[in-house]
């Protein structure tokens, strides 16, 4: 693929993502119409008079046709106005702005853990397919998928954080060092359930690459050591997992929601959980939008990455 071809490919995928994004927005907008309750009442509070409510309805554009309301909604989303929380104390956009870095750091650290755990175990398991290590890792991986993330989180808190004192028991940090330390255990709990999925895919990729003719040919041509592993095994073995990227990310995001609640990390997931518990509509709506747009973006990145890693992929 030439440079221009790549550019065009990315552009094409971006264009393809636009209708999906619009439909997503429509869907999230439609949530507003499905939920029982008067949005004007939410804004005005319970003690508002009928006149106030009517004024707010006009102000919110609730007296206009639905399509126009949707256009207005789009306008508000574009300008970052997602309303306030149910108690009115905080803007949803503020909540998202403060929660996003937390969730991103958590996701980043878990991704690192997931890749390290999956990479190391996959390499180990692939050394001898069906060997003792391979079988053992497979069994452990099956357990890993089955262990409930939140339960593991509790156990890590009581069993690791408490006795060692090396990690904060719940909560987040305020400096890079404390933030990273706070992310370690939650990320670990998260990785345990996600790493096996990546591991399985990576392992079969490695086995396949190692059995390949190009691997033998490279060896015959004198390629050895880390170059052989990196350029003739890992690079090729990375293609199937990268095509899993979107699926893995949604799995990680799902897990992050649970883990943030377990560890009390002030991220988007905790906000979502608390909003669901407190039936805070605006927050749910805003966060749903953020999460789904993130997935669309990740899908996009995943497709582009696959194309970069595997030049054979049709552009």
């Amino acid at each position, binding site marked *: 693929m030439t440079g221009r071809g790549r550019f065009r490919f990315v552009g094409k995928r971006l264009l393809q993502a636009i209708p999906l994004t619009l439909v997503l927005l429509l869907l999230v907008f439609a949530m507003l119409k499905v939920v029982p309750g008067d949005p004007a009442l939410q804004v005005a509070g319970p003690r508002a008079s009928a006149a106030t409510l009517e004024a707010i309805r006009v102000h919110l554009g609730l007296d206009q046709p639905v399509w126009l309301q949707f256009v207005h909604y789009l306008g508000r989303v574009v300008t970052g106005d997602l309303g306030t*929380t149910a108690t009115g104390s905080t803007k949803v956009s503020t909540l998202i702005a403060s929660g996003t870095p937390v969730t991103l750091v958590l996701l980043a650290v878990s991704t690192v853990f997931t890749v390290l755990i999956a990479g190391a175990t996959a390499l180990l398991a692939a050394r001898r397919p069906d060997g003792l290590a391979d079988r053992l890792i497979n069994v452990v991986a099956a357990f890993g998928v089955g262990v409930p993330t939140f339960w593991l989180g509790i156990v890590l808190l009581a069993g690791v954080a*408490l006795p060692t*004192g090396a990690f904060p*028991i719940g909560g987040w940090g305020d400096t890079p060092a404390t933030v990273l*330390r706070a992310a370690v255990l939650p990320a670990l709990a998260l990785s345990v359930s996600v790493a096996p999925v990546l591991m399985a895919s990576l392992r079969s990729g490695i086995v396949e690459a190692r059995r390949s003719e190009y691997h033998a040919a490279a060896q015959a041509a004198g390629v050895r050591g880390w170059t052989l592993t990196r350029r003739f095994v890992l690079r090729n073995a990375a293609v199937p997992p990268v095509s899993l990227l979107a699926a893995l990310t949604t799995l990680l995001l799902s897990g992050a929601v649970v883990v943030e609640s377990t560890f009390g990390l002030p991220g988007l997931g905790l906000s979502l959980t608390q909003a669901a518990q407190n039936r805070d509509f605006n927050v749910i709506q805003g966060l749903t939008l953020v999460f789904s747009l993130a997935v669309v973006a990740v899908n996009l990145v995943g497709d582009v990455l696959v194309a970069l890693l595997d030049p054979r992929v049709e552009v």
Partner: protein
Amino acid sequence: MNKWTKPAAAIAAVALVAGCGSGTGTGTGGSGTGAVKASNDLVIGRTVAVDGMSGDSCYGAGSISTMPMIYGNLLTNKPDGSGVQPGIAASYDYDATARTYTFHLREDAGFSNGSPVTGADVAFSFEQWRDGKTSGAYYDMIKSAEATDAHTVVVHLTRADTFLPALLTWCTSTVYPDRYAGMTPEQFFAKPIGAGPFTFASWQNPGPSETITLKKNPHYYDAAKGQPSIDTVVVKTSADASQQMLAFQGGQLDLIEGLTADEGNQLTTEQARIPKPSQARDLMLNSKRPALADVNLRKAISAAIDRNALASVQQGYVVPAEGILPINVPNSVPPTEPYTYDLAAAKALMAQRADQKPVTLTLGFEGSSSTVKTMVQLIRDQLAQIGVEVTLKPSDSATVYSQGSSGDFDMLISDPSAISPTVFDPISFVLTAWYPWTGADTALMKDKFTVGTSSTDDAVKDAAVRAIQDDARAQSTVIGLVNMSTAFAVADYVEGFTATPFLSYDAAAIRIRIRTGS
């Protein structure tokens, strides 16, 4: 030898290092005397977020303990809960006939920005309290406040009132610099300036998992006495009480507010500080709901609740309620006829209902506390015995409040706790919130509240309180469940901490035994 071993081992090693992290907790944790902490910082854990930085919006336990740290009050509670004591005001005079209070301010009180607290500041503050959107109603007896000199403020009332001194200890009575020191209210409350022992430094992730950091205020009025002793206060809020307990045991928290029996029972007796039970826990019944409009159902519910059982699961922290108001508060008297558990009577009352349809009710409560969760399960089981089916509905405290205020509930658990040394304090909550929320008739309570708060005679006050309790029993829209102690978990190296019965405590007096030398 396979080529794979080396990279695999290298990655595994990296994973191990990354997984282990480094560093140690802030505290040494540990138990027994002689425990010390590495730094002069107090890390406080709690489950309830503050309600903002404005005193006007203060209603929850988080704000009740935080506001006095930042702003300071004219008067404060005596640690044993028996009355008020001087704060920013060194003394006050009251003239019942002239309906005026005169406050004499301390001359050494200063705001965190360095300017001294003057009469003008206090007069401005009185106006802000009275005009507040949320809590202004408590201050409706105030006609005007004026600074007669730099350290004297005269407050004129519309009626005789003995409640004001207690009110001035509340978290709503926050002393502000005059005209918010030249800032808009938005600017001011984003980075408030106060005369309390600590200065606002930062407020991260406002909400259920917020972190508030406060620094020592060098201009605090007791600075000469070496108060506050602590350099930094960090308040960490988390909805998960059990997690906080672990953090405390791991030495990562030095103090936990709002400790309940479940958590307290996991601590040593020195660590769990339990004041006398003076927090009422009531059940609100929304009489605007068709089923609950029938007083027979409300009374049946009251009779079907076994308050001894509720108390027994939290021994040492909780006693059964006799009325709706907290005990161990000055002028608190029980109703003429205390609650009794009588299943037969409850069933009889159920049979007397006008509408014999089966009853299904939701029960809202603040879900972060395991003791509340246990309590509501027991209530659900108990009410099932008279055929009332209960659906439990946990939320966070802000949501419970908004459910109550918007009337969006069948039954709601709430705590009309005393936060100042007079029973008229919880009565005022019930009068302005609980009763309107449940659709109760407020006429008698309003009347008796005025009678009680305009008198200086304890007998008059007691009689008014008893009438209020009896009225509550008759209406049964608010039902007393238990009286609780809100306890504190205090690390062994924390000294000078006194657990007061009113949720707030004197943070300025707290000292930390720190590690000396290297």
